[in-house]
């Protein structure tokens, strides 16, 4: 997921999906699209957000639509999953997260998953207690980074 918000030109339809803070980050892009008289839609994700509605909204979009999704990291991960399930490829979307990002760490000893804040270098496994050094080795299947033995 990218932290840079850039307009990808030449798309037939732009989709802006964001929470209330995220829509502020997207506003400059929305202004450009508005000024250019280009087709667009906005969906705001609120506190009582219903993922089914977003899912349906994404599914009915036509080829050539480009999605900007901007939200707090945990919400953004769900949005990304919905978009992928609806058929959006990496080239047809930009995902911009803000706030504190949480990541998962896979314990090399017990295979348990622990959740921690991104950037935290070490963490005791929630399941077996082993002190883990968080690596940048990532598994899409586990959606987690590998945690190595931190101290011998």
């Amino acid at each position, binding site marked *: 997921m990218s932290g840079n918000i850039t307009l990808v030109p030449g798309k037939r339809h732009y989709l802006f999906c964001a929470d209330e803070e995220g829509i502020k980050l997207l506003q400059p892009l929305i202004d450009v699209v508005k000024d250019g008289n280009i087709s667009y839609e906005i969906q705001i994700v609120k506190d009582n957000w219903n993922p089914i509605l977003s899912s349906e909204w994404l599914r009915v979009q036509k080829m050539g639509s480009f999605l900007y999704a901007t939200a707090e990291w945990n919400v953004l991960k769900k949005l990304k999953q919905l978009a992928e399930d609806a058929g959006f490829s990496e080239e047809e979307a930009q995902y911009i997260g803000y706030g504190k990002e949480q990541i998962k760490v896979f314990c*090399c000893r017990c*295979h348990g998953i622990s959740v921690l804040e991104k950037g935290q270098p070490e963490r005791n496994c929630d399941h077996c207690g082993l002190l883990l050094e968080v690596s940048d*080795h990532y*598994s*899409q*299947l*586990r959606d987690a980074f590998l945690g190595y*033995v931190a101290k*011998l």
Partner: protein
Amino acid sequence: MKQSDGLDSFPYPFKEDVYRYSNNSVPMNHPISIEITQSYPEEIELKRELLTAHPERCFQSLRHTIKGQWEILDLVMEHLGTHYPDKFGLDKKGDNWTFTNHLLQEKQSFIFGDESTLPCEPLNYIGRHVQEDLIFMMQRDNDLFLDAGQLCFPANWSLAFDLGMNFKEIHQPIPGFKDEELDERILQFLLKLEPGNPWWRKNWSLMAGNRLDTSLETFDVWGKGRKQVTKENAGEFVHLRVEVQKLFRLPRTGGILFTIHTHLLPLEKLEAKPEWLNQFYQILQELPPYIVEYKGLSLFRGAVLEYLREQVESRKAL
């Protein structure tokens, strides 16, 4: 647990006095996916114990691999029956097959392609009869994915974590591998592998101790041995660990069977092979820091070098 059956059969991995990562694969003159050595009984016993005690650590598969698993079972059983006819038998009557392991006094009748007629998945079954670890890489989108494997003797990596990864993702932790585009070159080499033309290579590391099951899952236990190496105990305690790795393209599914046969040799045995002793001393001395670090040698390389230097000098004095 296991030491090499002897110096003559030990797959010494070096040709030159300098070691760097490379694609050192060569075509196989005798295309056999497996090798039965004198250590067969104890290694199979250990494998089966590990598979029973730690099934998730030692066997992983994605459901779409079943066809390929049958293809691997077919290939390995054929090789066992053909190359070791006194030890294994394979009788095929249409899809009704009977596999016999004379070494273990075991016989299994099953219907080829019918999973319910085997006690476990095909790869998991045949892996219990060979000393090799068996890894299955499937090809799609011009890439290779680790989609199944039976791995009991890993050199400090986790099959459970790496499952489903593509070739570059698997090798991402190796320093220098991506920078030098070695990952891309080796991937392209593997994608060009053809059925009927298998290749093989040797890989090496140093091991403080003599465990075969150096899994990442147990690193907190066996890794401590690295702190216990001294010049005095290195000859007996430290082992040269060599993996003979073979690559077979499977003709029907297009996947790749990657077999890994692990051998251990205590350093003291190098004394009987002065050319190996001298060369390994040169290699270890010259080894760049990023390889020292990745191969986990930082904690005990110094002690091993002192030991080797003494051995080399005492030979010169003779």
